[in-house]
């Protein structure tokens, strides 16, 4: 048992911190969010150069790390700065699925494009009626000779409007919620029959509703064996869940720090509000929440990297997401409340961190969902 960061992890942490400090203040971020793409291509290229895009992948796959701990070290820093670039969509989710399901030259080609910053991806798994259940898939994939015809609607597809390729989760057989029968296909975003309705989520991320109407792809666009993609999808989503949980931890720490700082300067009735004991104890509770959230995310990441059983790993992920969800509500609401009116304005970074963690609370299942999943396992 060992809690120390590896040299690579320390380097990563340092590298993100330096970038953020130099090039990612609140104004810069706001401009990026308001831009057409909703992220900075320049930054993305820089991330590639700094090796960040290679972090989710093993050395074997041409990556730099591949461990869950590597991921959380970096994503916690992303969270602190409320980074809006589509790292989770392209690298963690889609890249993770490619690494897990694809093989041979296709795999190495795709991953090379990805880590060099030349490929944007999106993963379309959620549907209007699926809520958080990954095996509830009604989007259909019918084999027709060498081709597969995809029909269905997906929601909450992050980065679809910038993606070159979309990884679509579709059902080839089985009943609506069967784990068996689910496949993943790579579909060009500009393929016939694909319509993308793009907008910005409240956390500034680009997202889309994507409709597939008789979209034809070659059967070779299927990643992995037919109908066997569920386990990989679950595993990668679990990993992404830990990733965004770490991002939330970073954002919450940022919120705490900004709140404490604000309370030291803001005066009411002639007194700095940070001297009011009622607020002090509430900030102490925010600190406790941050520490517990961080601890359980570390736990989940370490479990994913360990020899623990699948069951233990899955439970750890749900434990972390559930607990982080509670911390999100508690810490972010207190941050706004202690800031008062100014915390409600669009101008301050505090409100944007609040919105980002609220989105993370929903992503891949909220606290209630993960508590039940934990309890049922």
């Amino acid at each position: 048992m060992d809690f120390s960061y590896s040299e690579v992890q320390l380097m990563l942490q340092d590298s993100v911190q330096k970038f953020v400090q130099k090039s990612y203040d609140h104004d810069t971020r706001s401009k990026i969010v308001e831009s057409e793409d909703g992220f900075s291509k320049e930054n993305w290229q820089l991330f590639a150069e700094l090796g960040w895009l290679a972090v989710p992948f093993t050395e074997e796959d041409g990556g730099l790390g591949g461990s869950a701990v590597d991921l959380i070290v970096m994503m916690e820093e992303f969270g602190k700065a409320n980074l809006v670039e589509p790292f989770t969509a392209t690298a963690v989710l889609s890249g993770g699925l490619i690494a897990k399901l694809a093989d041979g030259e296709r795999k190495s080609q795709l991953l090379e494009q990805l880590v060099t910053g030349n490929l944007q991806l999106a993963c379309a798994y959620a549907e209007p009626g699926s809520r958080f259940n990954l095996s509830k898939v009604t989007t259909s994939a019918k084999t027709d000779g060498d081709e597969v015809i995809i029909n269905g609607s997906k929601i909450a597809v992050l980065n679809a409007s910038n993606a070159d390729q979309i990884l679509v989760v579709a059902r080839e057989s089985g009943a609506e919620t069967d784990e068996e029968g689910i496949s993943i296909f790579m579909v060009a975003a500009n393929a016939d029959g694909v319509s993308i309705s793009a907008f910005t989520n409240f956390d500034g991320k680009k997202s889309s509703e994507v409709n597939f109407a008789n979209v034809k792809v070659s059967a070779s666009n299927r990643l992995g064996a037919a109908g066997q993609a569920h386990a990989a999808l679950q595993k990668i989503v679990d990993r992404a869940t830990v990733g965004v949980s770490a991002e939330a931890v970073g954002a919450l720490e940022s919120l705490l720090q900004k709140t404490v700082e604000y309370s030291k300067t803001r005066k009411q009735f002639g007194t700095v509000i940070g001297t009011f004991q009622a607020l002090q104890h509430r900030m102490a509770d925010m600190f406790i929440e941050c520490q517990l959230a961080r601890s359980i995310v570390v736990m989940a990441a370490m479990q994913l990297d360990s020899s623990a059983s699948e069951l233990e790993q899955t439970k750890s992920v749900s434990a972390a997401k559930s607990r982080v969800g509670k911390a999100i509500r508690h810490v972010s609401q207190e941050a706004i409340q202690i800031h008062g009116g100014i915390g409600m304005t669009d101008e301050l970074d505090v409100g944007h961190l609040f919105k980002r963690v609220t989105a993370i609370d929903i992503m891949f299942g909220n606290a209630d969902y993960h508590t039940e999943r934990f309890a049922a396992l």
Partner: protein
Amino acid sequence: MDADFTAEDLSFQEDVRTFLENEFPEEYRSKIDANKRLSKEEIVNWQKILFAKGWAAPSWPEKYGGTGWSQIQKHIFATEMGLIGAPEPVPFGMKMVAPIIMAYGSDEQKARFLPDILESNVWWCQGYSEPNAGSDLASLKTSAVRDGDHFIVNGAKTWNTYGQYADWIFCLVRTDNTVKKQEGISFLLIDMNTPGVTLRPIYLLDGHAEVNEVFFDDVKVPVENLIGEENKGWTYAKVLLTHERTNISGVPRGKRRLRALKRIAAETDDGFGNNMLENHTFRNRVADIEIELKALEYAELRTLASISTGKAPGPESSILKIVGTELAQRIDEIFVDLAGYLCLPFVPEQFEDGFQGDPVGPGNSAAYALTYFNNRKASIYGGSNEIQRNIICKAVLGL
């Protein structure tokens, strides 16, 4: 004690219901149900319908156009309005400046301002808060210097809700710098069209600019716009601040929202073949909120009852502010939890009047997050919930 309404109250309730069913425009109702904002014109129109019926200002004394209703009748009216989603009048005229004009204004001021408020001909906004003042209202800096028949006003006010629609603003201004802060404040009415008044919208987390900063740059205000005596403004304002803590609990609105929540939950797939109302955790969370709402409803009724026996609404009513706002925020949360991914899209303009595009996100789910964000204000404004707790400590517990 008796939970049942009397025959008279029941018949009054029936009247109110019939009136609302017939007169509250169907299209407004659909907009409210779809979480869309009514436009100023629509709110004014509705207010004029109420005025025509003689029901514009239940909280006013009869001689100014009030209804002369009992507390129970007022409660019934507010409940039925809330249940159907009919908007209350914008409070700044009807509930904030009018009572002060009635209590401290001259006869000329009453004649000049009250009828237009009652008929919704003139919209008001509030000029209490200032940048950096927060809950410490009395530390305000906006100055009014006497110059013949006028005051010259300079300074800035903030958190002016609907300032962009307002014709007039009532302001606390500093008229004496040499005395302690509460004693040099006057209460001034200012026409928003006076030269030197400018507005800056403040965008909030929900993407909407419902509040503004208002700047005063050598604004000339006739002395006849002063309410009561110079330097006595704080006394007038304080009365208002401890006033009207009732009807703030939002119980009828809460009931309407819970009804909607349950309807939507019953239509929401849990992803495992059931609907969300069949989900135990969710169902019990809804039950908890319903129970809290019942407790709050009776806390409010008990306060109303104590007012009808002639007692002033005591500081106990700070409870209604605290519990009402925190419960509303819990309802905001559970809507977000119910919606899940569906509330992520941020297209605030689709809930505004005049939006022509296709709605983004199924149904109105995307509005839930906006409401969640916007309503964080509820525990901050109107005397933050921390201030309310201080009031309870001091005035009730003697701490």
